[in-house]
């Protein structure tokens, strides 16, 4: 019996190739895309799960308060916080400080060879007990109790030493105040891709406190409640309820406020599992994802697969007419309803299994591309996970149930006495059900199209915003770390300017396009005459006299620095945002006003038009520019109409000759801005792919449905033609129902999509208005598609000689 079912299913598939193709393609792409998205979501939610203690690990962060409201949230905390909280709260078992060094990079030297290293942290000894990072070489006990100890990851060791076991080797970090000498005491496995705290090298926290060169550069003090550049992680005691800890921690904050006079800030904890998708504070160790985006993509993926199921239901029930006779005969010769249901479910099972296999092929083909687009680690294993196969199995099962059950119920209920006589009509209820499915598909397509149009428009808008900075043809070179070499800047500059294509060179502590978190910040800077405190965070940078023209910034009031400027003159150039925060109504009134910060008085020399320090995604930030003419952060080199890429070799040669012990590191300024759109681009890419497939699947269904409509009404078309209807008349007649459904879908889709789009745009400080055409265009597109699919089929049917189509009936 089962064999017979398979046989007839197979022959039916072969007979109705377009039906089989539409279903197979729809289900397979639906499966493939949803499986890939599920894998992506699984990865995003797997963050920190490699840490055995993940449930007990908590990061403490700082909220800057403006009265009762939170003015700013900062990941970094003060060095004494960890030790104090561990002694005072019984819920806390241990702590480690994690000091991010040399953001974003430091230079290291190994036997007179110079390299650039990123992701370097100074951590306490407890780090190795709290986080899971197994030592491959070295002894764990008291590994970081002493200063000047270092641990490398496996690949860092391999990269710099050409071998993995480097315990006992030495390396140096050259800093402006001297060399930090480090003994390598261990090698650990590389950080997994799914952790927010990835590192290449760790040094012992005591080094921060005792090493002269590090002290000179960073000045970390163990009991300093003033500076906060340290990340603090704590390990809760086993069986401690997180809410209990939160309560105790609130009390702790209160005591801190009273005993230490800690008024402007409070500390809050966050479980490390909640960092990657939920935390967006300043000084995050890496840009984090967004849970809402991840869920959004997951939701869309499920819509795609449901859409594929809908196609199956619609096509299978539209085909009912064809199958009705078979059902009738089978009943006549003795089949029960159950047997028929099983038969149709088996057909659906076959299609779904075939689609599953086809989906695996699709995934195999698109895997590498998807991993790249979704920003997953390159060695991400898709098929290796048991989870993948469980989900695939579940999809097939769901597919059989969702897509197979309804047709099975409908088809098996036909009465042989009527279907065998050809007296067969669809019940109105069934038609209504199928119509709602089509409306659902149209609504989904409208929503997705409008979303994708909005996203594209917004990102295009951001990239075309006037940044207030001219990033063209600008190469930025990092300063050497040692003072002895920095002194040779004037030689470097002269040699660069000897090259005719170099227009000018400017110095600065940071450059636009870098994340603001890489700049230093100070709170409480205010006009001298104002006594009242506020808690705005001001961003500080140093520039020389060439900087403003090189960056193409606009000075709207006052004067630029010049050859007479000197750091001791305590003059600053500020931007409009800073003026606004100080409450100065007119920019021209700002010139000459006095500021107090760092215990002295400074004069406002000029006001810069706001420029985007970060990408146009973020709001303007208040920036204070001090004068400094030493090579400390970056030198920006502006070129005349030449491609700066071709000049890199030459710049490097000059750099190497002037600063022989410093590694050469550079970037193009426009790239720095582009990097900040990476996450949005990624979201846009993944979403575009998804939307593309969703629309493809909906179109397939529409096309199939249109063909069946035409087929079903072939006789009617013939009769109408005999009476004198034109092809256009017939087209209008057949499209009318579909157009009605599109309108209904529009009524459902537009309010939903309006809400989603508005919500999404709120993520951006600078955003587009939701234009009417953003809503109209997708609908026009869908209408076009409907008319197109129906036209093809109708014209085919309509040009047939009516005698033919009437005879066929």
């Amino acid at each position, binding site marked *: *019996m089962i064999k017979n079912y398979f*046989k007839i299913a197979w022959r*039916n598939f072969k007979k109705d190739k377009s039906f089989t193709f539409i279903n197979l393609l729809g289900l397979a792409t639906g499966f493939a895309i949803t499986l890939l998205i599920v894998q992506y979501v699984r990865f995003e939610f797997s963050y920190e799960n490699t840490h055995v203690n993940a449930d007990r690990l908590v990061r403490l962060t700082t909220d800057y308060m403006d009265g009762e409201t939170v003015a700013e949230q900062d990941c970094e905390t003060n060095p004494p916080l960890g030790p104090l909280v561990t002694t005072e709260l019984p819920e806390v078992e241990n702590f480690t400080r994690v000091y991010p060094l040399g953001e974003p990079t430091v230079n290291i030297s190994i036997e007179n060879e110079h390299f650039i290293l990123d992701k370097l942290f100074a951590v306490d000894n407890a780090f190795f007990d709290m986080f899971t990072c197994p030592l491959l070489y070295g002894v764990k006990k008291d590994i970081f109790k002493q200063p000047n100890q270092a641990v490398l990851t496996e690949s860092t060791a391999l990269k710099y030493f050409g071998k993995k076991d480097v315990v006992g080797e030495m390396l140096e970090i050259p800093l402006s105040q001297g060399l930090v000498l480090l003994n390598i005491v261990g090698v650990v496995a590389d950080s997994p891709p799914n952790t927010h705290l990835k590192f290449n090298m760790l040094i012992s926290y005591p080094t921060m406190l005792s090493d002269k060169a590090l002290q000179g550069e960073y000045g970390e003090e163990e009991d300093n409640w003033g500076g906060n550049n340290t990340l603090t992680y704590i390990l809760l005691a086993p069986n401690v309820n997180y809410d209990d800890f939160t309560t105790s921690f609130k009390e702790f904050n209160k005591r801190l406020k009273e005993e230490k006079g800690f008024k402007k800030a409070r500390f809050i904890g966050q479980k490390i599992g909640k960092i990657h998708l939920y935390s967006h504070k300043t000084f995050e160790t890496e840009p984090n994802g967004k849970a809402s985006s991840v869920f959004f993509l997951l939701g869309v993926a499920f819509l795609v697969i449901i859409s594929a199921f809908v196609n199956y239901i619609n096509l299978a029930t539209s085909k009912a007419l064809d199958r009705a006779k*078979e059902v009738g*005969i089978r*009943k006549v010769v*003795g089949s*029960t309803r159950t047997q028929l249901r099983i038969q149709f479910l088996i057909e659906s099972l076959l299609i779904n299994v075939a689609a599953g296999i086809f989906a695996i092929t699709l995934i195999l083909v698109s895997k590498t591309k998807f991993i790249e687009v979704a920003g997953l680690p390159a060695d991400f294993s898709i098929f290796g996970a048991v989870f993948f196969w469980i989900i695939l199995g579940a999809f097939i099962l769901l597919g059989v149930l969702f897509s197979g059950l309804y047709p099975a119920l409908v088809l098996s209920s036909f009465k042989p*006495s009527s279907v065998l006589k050809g007296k067969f009509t669809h019940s109105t209820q069934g038609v209504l059900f199928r119509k709602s499915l089509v409306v659902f598909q149209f609504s989904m397509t409208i929503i997705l199209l409008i979303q994708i149009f909005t996203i594209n428009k917004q990102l295009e808008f951001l990239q075309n915003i006037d940044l207030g900075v001219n990033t063209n043809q600008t190469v930025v070179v990092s300063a050497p770390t040692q003072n002895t070499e920095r002194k040779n800047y004037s030689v470097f500059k002269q040699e660069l300017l000897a090259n005719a294509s170099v227009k000018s060179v400017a110095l600065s502590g940071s450059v636009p396009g870098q994340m603001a978190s890489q700049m230093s910040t100070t709170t409480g800077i205010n006009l001298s005459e104002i006594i009242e405190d506020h808690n705005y965070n001001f961003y500080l940078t140093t520039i020389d006299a060439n900087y403003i023209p090189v960056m193409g910034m606009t000075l709207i009031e006052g004067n630029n620095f010049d050859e007479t400027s000197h750091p001791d003159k305590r003059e600053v150039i500020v931007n409009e945002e800073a003026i606004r925060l100080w409450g100065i109504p007119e920019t021209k009134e700002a010139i000459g006003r006095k500021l107090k910060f760092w215990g002295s008085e400074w004069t406002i020399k000029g006001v810069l038009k706001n420029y985007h320090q970060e990408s146009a995604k973020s709001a303007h930030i208040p920036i204070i520019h001090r004068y400094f003419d030493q090579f400390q952060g970056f030198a920006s080199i502006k070129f005349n109409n030449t491609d700066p890429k071709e000049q890199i070799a030459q710049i490097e040669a000059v750099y190497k000759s002037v600063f022989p012990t410093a590694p050469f590191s550079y970037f193009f300024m426009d790239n720095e801005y582009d990097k900040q759109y990476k996450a949005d681009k990624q979201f846009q890419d993944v979403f575009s792919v998804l939307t593309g497939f969703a629309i493809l699947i909906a179109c397939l269904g529409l096309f199939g449905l249109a063909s069946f409509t035409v087929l079903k009404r072939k006789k009617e078309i013939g009769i109408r033609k005999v009476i004198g209807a034109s092809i256009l008349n017939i087209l209008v007649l057949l499209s009318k129902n579909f157009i009605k459904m599109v309108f209904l879908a529009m009524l459902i889709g537009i309010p939903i999509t309006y809400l989603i789009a508005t919500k999404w745009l709120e993520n951006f400080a600078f955003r587009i208005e939701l234009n009417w055409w953003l809503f109209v265009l997708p609908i026009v597109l869908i209408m076009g598609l409907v008319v197109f699919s129906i036209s093809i089929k109708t014209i085919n049917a309509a040009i047939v000689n009516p005698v033919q189509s009437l005879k066929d009936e």
Partner: protein
Amino acid sequence: MIKIKDLEKYYKTEELQTIALNKLSFEVKQGEFIAVMGPSGCGKSTLLNILGMLDDSDGGSFIFNGEEVINYNERKRASIRKHNIGFVFQSFNLIDQLTVFENVELPLIYTGVKKAERKKKVEAVLEKMQIMHRRKHFPQQLSGGQQQRVAVARAVVNDPKLILADEPTGNLDSSNGNEVMELLTELNDQGTTIIMVTHSEHDAKYSHRIIRMLDGQKVTENSLV
């Protein structure tokens, strides 16, 4: 074998009710060959559908092999049907996607006959219907006469006690039609009860008894033997 009494059947649409069977009563004995005649719309096919348990009646009694089946549910009716009744239709009603052999085999599958035995039975009946050489063909590759022979083969493969034939020669030319009638007569001679709906006086002459109907009622009943 069959005893119907006051059988009623209505067709209802929103506005009107049509009476298809109006208190129809008659009896059929084992081994009889009955022809049911009458103009279009007189209720012949409705009667056949009810006798074949493909349709419900709206009143009366229907005793099949001594059992009152009027209130049986679909499952029970399907079970009686597959063990006792074979159907032959005017439009043959073969499944296009199955071969001749598979079409004939179908009733045996539903009654749970083992594969080897199915093969034996199907081949025997195909042999008897002289259609064995076409066993691997699909219905659309056969002539009308051949298709109807396959349909008869399918109707008898399960050795039913009753064959219900709905205008079995309606789509056939006279020589093919006669052939089918000969087949039915032969089956009847071997003991199968046959009830046949027909428009053809010629075909009706093959039967033992003709029941003439009009407007859902029996008008005359005349025996030919």
